[in-house]
């Protein structure tokens, strides 16, 4: 575990020293400007608009950052050959991947939490009370971020940065429409197509499970059952994706 944490810490440091602080600052500023600009237009619903806009924006920025940074993170290591010095140590390739995953997840999660803190502060300053109800939605977003990060690590284990970014973006977008696939299955499509659709339904991450922004905006609670299911499903999905990534990476040749 020490080796995994060492690699994770190094990845976190790499991300933090390069880009995240800048993105965080820019987004924070964006929220402040947006809150001031939108509140007079929202007919008394300015607070809800800012919370909704802030939550959606922070989740989207974090996920995009995970995809952009993650897609090149492994490739950069291989291209610069830094990975050679690491894998010549008593480190399993799976440990290396797990460290990369944890570091990237921690970095993007820190960004999301930072943006949430700014959002809370801005709303509290503008409307008198912080919207603490968003924390439940943010914790689900953190799990969604973990799933997307794991998918990024999976593709980066065997393909190019551009393809990794493309596949991860496609999976993240399609994951929000996974439930809609059931509609097509239920409509009684022909046998093979039905089986394929059902297969895709099970393979895609069910990311809509992690979208609780509507509840947060209206200050409604997220049920404990949903939270528990989302946690179990998220951790299992991440574990399965990383196991597959580890198997692929273990057989990879470094020419």
């Amino acid at each position: 575990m020490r080796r995994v944490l060492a690699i994770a810490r190094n990845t976190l440091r790499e991300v933090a020293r390069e880009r995240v602080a800048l993105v965080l600052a820019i987004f924070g500023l964006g929220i402040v400007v947006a809150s001031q600009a939108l509140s007079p237009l929202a007919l008394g619903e300015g607070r809800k608009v800012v919370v909704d806009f802030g939550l959606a924006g922070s989740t989207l920025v974090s996920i995009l950052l995970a995809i952009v940074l993650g897609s090149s993170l492994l490739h950069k290591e291989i291209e610069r050959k830094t990975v050679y010095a690491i894998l010549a140590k008593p480190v399993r390739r799976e440990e290396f991947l797990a460290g990369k995953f944890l570091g990237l997840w921690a970095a993007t999660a820190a960004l999301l939490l930072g943006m949430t803190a700014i959002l809370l502060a801005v709303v509290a300053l503008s409307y008198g009370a912080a919207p603490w109800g968003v924390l439940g939605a943010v914790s689900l977003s953190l799990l969604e971020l973990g799933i997307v990060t794991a998918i990024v690590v999976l593709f980066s284990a065997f393909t190019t940065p551009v393809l990794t970014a493309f596949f991860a973006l496609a999976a993240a977008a399609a994951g929000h429409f996974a439930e809609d696939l059931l509609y097509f299955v239920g409509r009684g499509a022909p046998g093979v197509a039905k089986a394929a659709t059902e297969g895709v339904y099970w393979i895609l991450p069910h990311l809509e499970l992690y979208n609780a922004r509507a509840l947060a905006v209206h200050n409604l609670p997220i049920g404990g059952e949903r939270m528990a299911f989302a946690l179990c499903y998220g951790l299992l999905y991440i574990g399965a994706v990383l196991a597959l990534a580890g198997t692929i990476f273990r057989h990879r040749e470094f020419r």
Partner: protein
Amino acid sequence: MSRERDESRRVPGWAPRVAGNLLQEVDPLPRVLLDGVTKVYRDPMTLRPAVAVEGLSLELRPAEIFGLLGPNGAGKTSTIKMILGLTRPTRGTIRLQGRDPRDPRSRARLGYLPENPSFYDHLVADEVLGLMADLFGIDPQLGRRRAEELLRRLGLAGHTKKALRKFSKGMTQRLGLCQALLNEPKVLILDEPMSGLDPIGRAEVKRILREERARGTTVLMSSHVLAEIETLCDRVAIMDRGRVLRMGAVESLLQSEALEWEIVTDAISPTRAALLGSRGHRVEGGGTRWLIRVSDAAAVQEVLRDLTQEGVTIRAVEPRRESLEEFFMRALASDGGPG
């Protein structure tokens, strides 16, 4: 080419050899073993095979420095990558400290310096060594102590807080050596370790490698600098197009008989120089320093007698033996390579 004095071999003399013999008794398994190893790469588009290494068998023992020589594309780096477990042999067996190289335990006491090493630009030297110590599972305090000691030994003590992006090539090479030595390795694999180093740096690295050998470490190094290999290595393998052309102790590979004799003199007359030339000897120089190369040992006495009778002062008479570079070129030429 003048052969540099190898202090660790000559000053303590018997010490490394005795240490090596004792280690072999205690540690009977070869530190690195390659048995009939072949590596074939396939072009990802055409699937056409390209043989990188063919039927390589090798056994590395404790307390020796082994050199891999060869032109670009000879298979040196491919061999090293297989030993490290970065690639798998297509055929044959590799054992690193008795284990499959893909078993992380085989790399616990392995030090590796890649060719043109590159480390994380966002870190400083201290942080790189801290990360490597964690990966080796070294106690943090001990890791810090060793890192400080190595940075001092390799002349980087004043640069511990400097970002690696500001490091010169030579400094990065030294840092690479620091991280390779951090775990007090039993096997040290160095891909072109002299690359990017100035003469002082090269001398320092050679001193460190000799110290490592005296400690019982097995060193496997590849290099293009044949003079370094000749003065440093106990055994060498000359590779070309994936095959080993020659392998053995440096002394036994090189022709023990003198290739020619070099006679250094003060001024000689133009007539004498012309006469020597007409007898097939090569005469170089001018003024007060001349060099006469005599290829036939039997003719040396005759040349010396003539010069002495003429009153020419003889400064030196030295046999010139085959250098590793000449042997290397000869081996490649006999294999149909350059030469």
